[in-house]
């Protein structure tokens, strides 16, 4: 029995130490973003030789939103001679194929790829098909519900003038931020995650992350390494670690803003975060040691990258720590930890989509000039248990994926957009 108590107490101490490490990490990020000199991306470069860019838009039943994206892309100021748009219709059974053909008839540089039949489904498989026919040396990816700003493609493409850059990430801003409490919280999450976390990691030369949309990468890197792995749901995280392991950099441009539609119901958010957790943890299992021992990655990058790989395990660790505390309580062994277990609750006031503690979100909201939205911050405590549940389920999905080597099935996030909102936007 004594051994059991020692193990339980050891796990408890491990959880507390882990929480303190993350708390310090994100305090450093917040401090850096608020007070350090900011590392600006490549927006001040003026070059007549812009690279050939292929914009890829993977889509499955996107009739509600796709016109908005095309219309935004058509307003972009990138040289049309050096731009092509490949719309990847992945087994849609709504009016998406007709809309793509309609745009192709009007604009020849919009090229649809229709993926039907028994072929592999999902975003990575679709991107692989598009990579085979893309003419651009730089690939920029958007999800179908995104609305890029006018100069976004130019800002993203310019970074590839730097030969060390393997991928770039722009900033995602929710367009439906004031719809309900969930979208308010997601807006805060995005603010902490991009305005502070990504920018600070870029400032500190750590590990800014390619996010799968509103970002770009070099085509030749992907082709040389066999394209996207269709067994991984988080192809963005996988790409980030692949690029770093090969000695390239990922850069972040905080000014390259693109607007997205956030999930508007908790049910949809739950499914989305479970999928993210599954994909991220698959990458974690695959890259943990490979990244840690990569000769192309510096020490600080390794530390940051390892902590980043573990973020979707932390909610499960915290959940188990609370069960651990409950068992210790009934064994009468809580007294020596009286109060100190409060450190576990530091971790609860986080957003879990991109892991930002309350002070990091506060810093982001402050920099963004948000006002009343910030008052929703205390609501985070209740959403923790929601995230703990779905992220843990995603972790177990990933464990089963690894054990059974099963094929993953891509599930897209439900869209909420409608014509009325488009008119109002």
């Amino acid at each position, binding site marked *: 029995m004594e051994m059991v108590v020692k193990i339980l107490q050891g796990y408890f101490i491990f959880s507390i130490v882990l929480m303190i490490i993350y708390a310090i990490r994100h305090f450093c990020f917040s401090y850096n973003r608020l007070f350090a000199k900011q590392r600006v991306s490549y927006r001040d470069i003026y070059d007549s030789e812009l690279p050939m860019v292929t914009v890829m838009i993977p889509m499955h039943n996107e009739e509600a939103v796709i016109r908005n994206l095309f219309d935004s892309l058509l307003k972009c100021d990138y040289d049309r001679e050096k731009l092509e748009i490949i719309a990847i219709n992945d087994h849609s059974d709504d009016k998406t194929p007709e809309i793509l053909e309609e745009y192709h008839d009007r604009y020849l540089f919009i090229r649809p790829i229709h993926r039907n039949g028994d072929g592999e489904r999902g975003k990575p498989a679709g991107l692989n098909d598009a990579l085979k026919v893309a003419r651009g040396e730089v690939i920029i990816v958007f999800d179908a519900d995104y609305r890029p700003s006018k100069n976004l493609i130019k800002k993203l493409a310019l970074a590839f003038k730097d030969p060390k850059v393997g991928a770039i990430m722009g900033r995602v801003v929710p367009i439906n931020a004031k719809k309900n409490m969930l979208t308010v919280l997601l807006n805060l999450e995005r603010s902490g995650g991009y*305005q502070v976390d990504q920018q600070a990691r870029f400032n500190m030369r750590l590990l800014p992350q390619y996010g799968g949309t509103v970002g770009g990468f070099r085509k030749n890197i992907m082709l040389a390494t066999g394209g996207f792995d269709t067994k991984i749901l988080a192809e963005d995280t996988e790409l980030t670690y692949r690029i770093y392991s090969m000695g390239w950099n990922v850069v972040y441009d905080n000014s390259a803003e693109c607007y997205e539609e956030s999930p508007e119901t908790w049910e949809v958010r739950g499914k989305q975060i479970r999928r993210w957790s599954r994909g991220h943890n698959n990458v974690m299992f695959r890259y943990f040691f490979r990244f840690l021992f990569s000769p192309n990655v510096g020490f600080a990058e390794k530390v940051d990258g390892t902590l980043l790989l573990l973020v979707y395990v932390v909610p499960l660790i915290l959940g188990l720590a609370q069960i651990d505390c409950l068992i210790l309580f009934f064994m009468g062994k809580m007294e020596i930890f009286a109060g100190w277990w*409060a450190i576990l609750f530091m971790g609860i006031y986080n957003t879990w989509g991109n892991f930002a503690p309350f*002070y990091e979100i506060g810093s982001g909201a402050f920099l963004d000039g948000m*006002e009343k939205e910030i008052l929703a*911050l205390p609501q985070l405590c209740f959403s923790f248990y929601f995230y703990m549940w779905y992220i843990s389920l995603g972790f177990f999905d990933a464990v089963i994926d690894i054990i059974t080597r099963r094929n993953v099935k891509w599930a897209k996030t439900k869209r909420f957009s409608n014509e009325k909102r488009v008119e109002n936007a």
Partner: protein
Amino acid sequence: MGKISNKGEKNEIYYSRDYRHLNRAWITYLLQIIFVLVPVILIYLCSYSEISYYISEFSAGLISNITVDTTGILKEKYFPIFGVIYYITMKGKYPSFTMAMISFIVTLILIVVFARINMNRKPLMIFLTIGLCVHLASSLFFIFFGNKFPYTLDTYSILYMKQQVIVWLMIIVVYWLSTSLITHVTWYRIISLAMLMVLSFVYGIVRYILYMIIISQFSYLFMASLYFTFGVLFDFLIMVGIFSLFIYRSGKKFQGKKRGRVWKWS
């Protein structure tokens, strides 16, 4: 960015948010820690003994007026240098087997009902369901191992008081460091910290009294769920609430007249 008038013209252009940041001297930051945070921590540590005594005295007086139970105040050693900690002593009550069984069945039914009505998995419902699960575990414990329950109301009372001493210490440190990210206006942060501590003390005392009354009147069965469900999480809720108010007020100030002077663009 900017406010757009009815004519579609921007009548106010906001500063770019992309790369703006604040100016901060390291020396000011360190001086604030040395001359404000450290003394506040020392004052707190030197006075937790008195704080716990006054809380216990007030709580014991109030409980005596509400219930017929007799209460007293005991003390125990805590941190070696900073002195003893005081707490209330009261007589607790074990639940009967029937009570534990009824509690188990009712809690189980509630969990099933919550799961049925909570098809959208709303966060608040998940939180309440987890609270019910803790109570379910407590009911099971008393059904099978009731005689091995390791606490009396006295041991629980001291556990609570020790927990609060550490929680309040942590709130001071975490709140001070968190607000230091936004502004170095010391008096503004001291006032908000004082406000936070008053609220946190009031909440801590009210909860202590309620816990002691509930457990003494309705048995140890409720001890675990009270400790885990309405415990430290809510102390932090108050802190994050005050922090969000602080950011809201600071944000308004920094977006106002002085904005051009506080923001830097590398």
